């Protein structure tokens, strides 16, 4: 175990910026309303998060740093997740400018709601950063519940009956699920306090380092209870069955950039928390316990996602269920738990975030143009808008895990990791389900993208709107071919988790 040390001021700043920058941007939007300038300020805040993540990643090595007292803690995992948040958020906020501009122009929204949107998106980013960087599992919980609150009105942004319905389901199901996580946290705290009696002061019984340190001494029976609750609880927010049911509704109703953030980052942030739990669980109960749980939930999620994709008629819901599918795959990867599998898992998270951002932002453009998210209403996209269609297609290819995009590298890594862990059967089952999802996604995308132009609207894409999409595709492509130093960081983070 490597030491946790207090961060130098510069690094402490790198840990605080991901929280502070979006908060500042939120304040700015609150003060000045949503306009291009404040929009770009949000982009800047997100980019600052990305840079902070990169700085942390390059400096943290295989140790951990704390800042703001014992409140914040960054290790390689947190650094990678900060990068994920920053990267996807940059694309999403960038895409928001064009998206909200078009919505305002079409009269789909008001300036007041646009302002709320701007504030909430930035708060959302801040809560996610907190969830990743917090030192205390309780605070992580608070932050993740905070994401639900921040996104509630984002999901309901359009204020249509469907949006309200989606928001209600989202808030209730996620709150219930996350409440279970709180229950699990309490039980774990109980076990930790008991095990740590005499070792450290009880106030930090939920700190990550403390938990890892006392993990071997935790009472197995109580820990089992806690881990099940935490798995189901954070699994809810990560979109794992059986509490997966909010996901498609929320993703399909939220504005496209928010869908991108939720799908690309929020799920992953919740999942990362499960990885933290896994480290504790593995030390306390052996690797087999949570592995079984993750496999069951992962495969169940894959089944649900793949089969719901089969008859899907709505392209945003299709993308949502694809996220579900990827979360299922992540669960299988986490079950494997080798260093390679974990590194691949994190790469998968990043690549999926980028790909999903591109897809949801393109889907947003389609929705704006057609006023509907039904596949039947938007056929022959490629013929009507080669750029938009091409970017959607590229995003889809990236999402399907085909080379040369990054998800290919991560999926192969996950497969290798799973095979190394002796989970070949689970891998085979998972991949067959992924195949069903692949078939369904391809079928629907062929319907959506290909074919003659028909009489639908022309789909022109303004350069400013296209830019984040192009950047996203390019980033995914580059990551798929060459990860550079990021590869080492991923491996380090994988090492911490395995």
């Amino acid at each position, binding site marked *: 175990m490597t030491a946790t040390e207090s961060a130098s001021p510069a690094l402490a700043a790198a840990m605080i910026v991901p929280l502070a920058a979006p908060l500042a941007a939120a304040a700015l939007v609150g003060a000045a309303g949503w306009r291009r300038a404040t929009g770009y300020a949000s982009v800047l805040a997100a980019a600052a998060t990305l840079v902070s993540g990169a700085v942390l990643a390059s400096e943290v090595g295989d140790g951990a740093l704390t800042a703001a007292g014992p409140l914040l803690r960054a290790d390689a995992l947190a650094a990678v997740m900060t990068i994920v948040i920053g990267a996807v958020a940059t694309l999403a906020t960038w895409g928001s400018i064009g998206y909200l501009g078009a919505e305002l122009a079409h009269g789909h929204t008001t300036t007041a709601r646009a302002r709320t949107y701007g504030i909430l998106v930035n708060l959302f980013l801040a809560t996610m950063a907190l969830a990743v960087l917090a030192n205390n599992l*309780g605070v992580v919980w*608070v932050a993740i519940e*905070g994401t639900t609150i921040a996104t509630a009105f984002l999901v309901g942004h359009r204020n249509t*009956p469907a949006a309200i319905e989606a928001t209600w389901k989202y808030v209730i199901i996620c*709150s219930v699920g996350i409440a279970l996580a*709180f229950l699990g946290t309490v039980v774990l705290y109980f076990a930790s306090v008991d095990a740590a009696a005499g070792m450290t002061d009880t106030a930090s019984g939920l700190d990550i380092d403390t938990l890892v340190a006392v993990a071997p001494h935790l009472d197995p029976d109580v820990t089992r209870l806690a881990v099940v609750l935490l798995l189901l609880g954070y699994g809810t927010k990560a979109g794992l069955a059986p509490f997966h049911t909010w996901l498609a509704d929320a993703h399909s109703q939220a504005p496209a950039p928010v869908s991108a953030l939720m799908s690309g980052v929020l799920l992953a942030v919740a999942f990362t928390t499960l990885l933290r739990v896994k480290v504790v669980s593995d030390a306390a109960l052996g690797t087999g316990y949570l592995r079984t749980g993750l496999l069951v939930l992962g495969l169940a999620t894959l089944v649900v996602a793949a089969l719901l994709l089969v008859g899907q008629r709505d392209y945003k819901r299709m993308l949502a269920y694809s996220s579900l599918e990827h979360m299922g795959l992540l669960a299988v990867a986490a079950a494997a738990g080798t260093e390679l599998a974990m590194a691949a898992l994190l790469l998968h998270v990043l690549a999926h975030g980028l790909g999903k951002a591109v897809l949801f932002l393109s889907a947003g453009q389609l929705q704006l143009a057609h006023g509907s998210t039904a596949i039947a209403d938007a056929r022959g996209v490629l013929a009507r808008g080669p750029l938009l269609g091409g970017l959607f297609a590229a995003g889809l290819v990236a999402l399907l895990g085909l080379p040369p995009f990054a998800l290919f590298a991560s999926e192969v890594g996950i497969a290798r990791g799973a095979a190394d862990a002796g989970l070949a059967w689970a891998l085979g089952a998972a991949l067959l389900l992924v195949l069903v999802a692949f078939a369904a996604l391809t079928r629907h995308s062929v319907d959506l993208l290909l074919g003659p132009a028909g009489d639908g609207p022309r789909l022109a894409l303004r350069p400013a709107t296209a830019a984040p999409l192009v950047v996203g595709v390019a980033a995914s492509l580059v990551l798929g071919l060459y990860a550079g130093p990021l590869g080492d960081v991923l491996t380090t983070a994988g090492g911490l988790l395995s």
Partner: protein
Amino acid sequence: MTSETYANLLHFAGGLLLLCTVGVVWRHQLGASVRLLAVQGAALAAIPLISGIYHEKAHLLAIAPVVLVLRAAVLPYLISRMVPPTARPPGGWTASAAPATPAAQADAGAPDGPTATRPGPAADVLAGSREPVPLISTSVTLLLSAALTVLAYALCRPIIALDPTADTRTAPAALAVIFIGLLALTTRRQAVSQVVGFLTLDNGIVALAFLLTSGVPLVVELGASLDLLLVVLVVAALTNRMRAAFGGTDIGELQELKE
């Protein structure tokens, strides 16, 4: 305070908590549910108070009023504002223990003819102040609650085994509250009822936290309370929007988004 008194008081608080919870799933009148929630909040606040006095822990004594204000006053108040006034004077236990006839009418769906003009449970349902026909009949709900209580006791065995004190022995009651809250969420159709169910669940968790570990760290406790408050505010706002959009708050009607 002797340890015996302490244990008795603690058990009493836990029992009250559980009792209120059962009441919540029993009653169909939303106003009554909200009042039961307030009582539940008070019973919950009693736990840190008793525990703080017995263990002489200042931070528990400090937190008890906070819990009391939030859970017995603020949240019930916020929720009660979501409930439109009932057509009849709020009658507490007696009024809601109404004869079977109106309930049967409610069962039959929208009343026709002369009964429609007479204010009654059906009108309350439409207005959103009364729970419509439950998805699972009340008696089955109560039986399920009993089963869940048994399950809670079974699940708490390892906890009690690890640290056999009066606190942990009360934990099953808190866990049962959690389960029953979940049951209420699953079976209740009015928006307000779901919120009540959710708060019940949350109360159970907080109670468990106090019982097991004398509360979570302060920062977490504050954060969680803030979250809860915000969630209730969000839900309240949503309920208003829902009423505006759908003309009602029957969650069972929200089935546009599927598959």
